[in-house]
């Protein structure tokens, strides 16, 4: 029983990371109608930037060798890089692809993925890098009175979950309460209408992609801190796609819930169903789960229903 709860909690934590990545997807889709396949690559790119900057800053400016200062600066620099990426994407690609069909935009983001992968490795190298933001690595044991031996929870996971929750709350506030957030929602609904009331589309898109970049950076830092920054991060991030499907492409709460469901589902299925099928089912479980779910409810948990008007 304790094992079950540990697996459950582990799943929730993993799910939280998926949710963060999925969040980036949803943000960009809501505001520009683009399904950003490159979100995973952005996470890796951001994590690489952070890891390397944290390494390089003490080398460039020995006076800033203090790890906390170096990390904060590295974060700021990495964020700056992500904003630059957002601007480049908007100016060079998005503005010219605005009226294309979904599949063209999807292909463009796939191309962007390849580009970002190559660029990241060219600029920052392709080894495995560490990110050390001072997350405590030791586990904590809780509920010793209820279960024998207690339940093992990683403190790092707890902190990550806390950070993720704060991030989501901030984003939700941003969307609902600020004028920019309102503008973003207007653009997501109808580009042309938004333009006609004076909302500057390119600025909005730069903001959205920057925010998505920020989310990618946070996800990258959390994940990189736990697992080390390496190329496989990009592949794992692909897992966020079924999360988005499950939750609904246009829903932020959907991304959260979807991520948690997938995270838990994966862990539990691997332990309990995996052995029956030969193991290693984690690579497809999320997708098949999302698929089956789609057959029952095509728009996802929280997505908007699509009505065709003829």
């Amino acid at each position, binding site marked *: 029983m304790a094992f079950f709860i540990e697996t459950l909690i582990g799943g929730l934590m993993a799910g939280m990371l998926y949710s963060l990545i999925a969040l980036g997807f949803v943000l960009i889709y809501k505001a520009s109608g683009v399904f950003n396949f490159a979100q995973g690559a952005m996470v890796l790119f951001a994590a690489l930037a952070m890891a390397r900057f944290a390494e390089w800053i003490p080398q460039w400016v020995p006076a800033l060798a203090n790890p906390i200062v170096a990390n904060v600066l590295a974060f700021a620099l990495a964020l700056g890089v992500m904003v630059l990426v957002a601007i480049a994407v908007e100016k060079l690609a998005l503005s*010219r692809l605005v009226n294309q069909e979904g599949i063209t935009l999807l292909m463009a983001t796939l191309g962007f993925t390849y580009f970002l992968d*190559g660029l990241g490795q060219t600029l920052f190298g392709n080894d495995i890098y560490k990110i050390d933001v001072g997350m405590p690595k030791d586990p904590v044991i809780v509920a010793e009175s209820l279960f024998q031996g207690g339940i093992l929870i990683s403190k790092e996971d707890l902190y990550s979950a806390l950070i993720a929750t704060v991030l989501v709350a901030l984003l939700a506030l941003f969307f609902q309460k600020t004028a920019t957030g309102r503008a973003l929602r207007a653009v997501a609904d109808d580009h042309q209408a938004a333009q006609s009331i004076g909302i500057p589309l390119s600025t909005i898109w730069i903001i959205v992609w920057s925010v998505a970049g920020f989310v990618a950076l946070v996800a990258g830092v959390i994940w990189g801190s736990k697992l080390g920054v390496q190329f496989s991060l990009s592949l794992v991030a692909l897992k966020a796609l079924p999360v988005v*499907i499950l939750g609904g492409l246009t829903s932020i709460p959907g991304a959260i819930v979807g991520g948690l469901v997938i995270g838990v589902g994966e862990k539990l299925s691997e332990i309990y169903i995996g052995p029956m099928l030969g193991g290693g089912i984690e690579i497809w479980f999320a997708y098949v789960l999302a698929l089956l779910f789609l*057959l029952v409810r095509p728009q996802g948990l929280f997505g908007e229903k699509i009505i065709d008007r003829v």
Partner: protein
Amino acid sequence: MFYREAGQFKSTYRADQQILPIRQDRVAMALLLLTAFVIVPLTAPEYLLRAILVPFLILSLAALGLNILVGYCGQISLGTGAFMAVGAYAAYNAQARIEGLPLIVSLLLGGACATVVGVIFGVPSLRIRGLYLAVATLAAQFFVDWAALRLRFVTNGSESGSVSVSGLHVFGLPIESPASKYLLCLSFAVVFALLAKNLVRSGIGREWMAMRDMDVAAAVIGIRPVHAKLTAFAVSAFIVGVAGGLWGFVHLGAWEPAAFNIDRSFQLLFMVIIGGLGSISGGFLGAAFIVLLPIALERLPQLLHLPVSTAMSSHLTSMVFGVLIVFFLIVEPHGLARLWATAKEKLRLWPFPH
């Protein structure tokens, strides 16, 4: 100026409906086929045949299959690698378990198995579409990746999913030299291109295109969405499956599940997009572009005498690839086939601007 249709009038519907109604096109096609079947195998260097033309032909075939699903019927699929894998492993199993089964029969059986899998994973398209469907097809991709790795019966007992074949022959003739491999693939490509062209210009092709353009209206005309979508998945999967078998048997000789992974799916999708959605020749054009591009990118630093390490070179290839894809999509989203068609139209009026 090059108004090629001048003087060629059709007096029967049959003549009007030919695949190549203009005489000059027929002549050009005959020359092309002659060159491909006779001149190339006799004169081309082995490297060209083995490393460029054979993969080009097999990938063109796969792109052809994918184009039917994506370009003609409008159903996005990111799991093409999986169908290639099914075709390859099924053909392998047929060859390994049934004594003396002819190669072509094995390949076709591989295609048939891919068809079954394709239809199963096509069922979701009846309820979901667009990007949701794209992600659902990823389920097929990863599931088959896993099955080839873990399920013993798929790989006929092999531990890691790696299998190998040898001693191929067709009608008693050994398929070992690059020229023979090339001719085998060329034959498959030409035959399937013809069959596909027939399909897309008949009733079923129109059904597919109707589903792509406006499925609500299609239903009102009496087109069954289920029939249209599932036949598209079936035909597409069959062709892709045969291509997969060819890829494993003829091009690779020995393979493992990674040969058909998600990168392969993306590669094929790029071919179809760049070549031109909804165009039979588009598959060939896109495959040529994608096959030749990495080679060109590899050669370029050498030509410019820039010292570039292999790792760096592959990163740069990735980057240039990505940029070119985006560039292409901006400049001509309907692909090379459309560029070619536009060029032909401009040539009719040249030297006048309009």
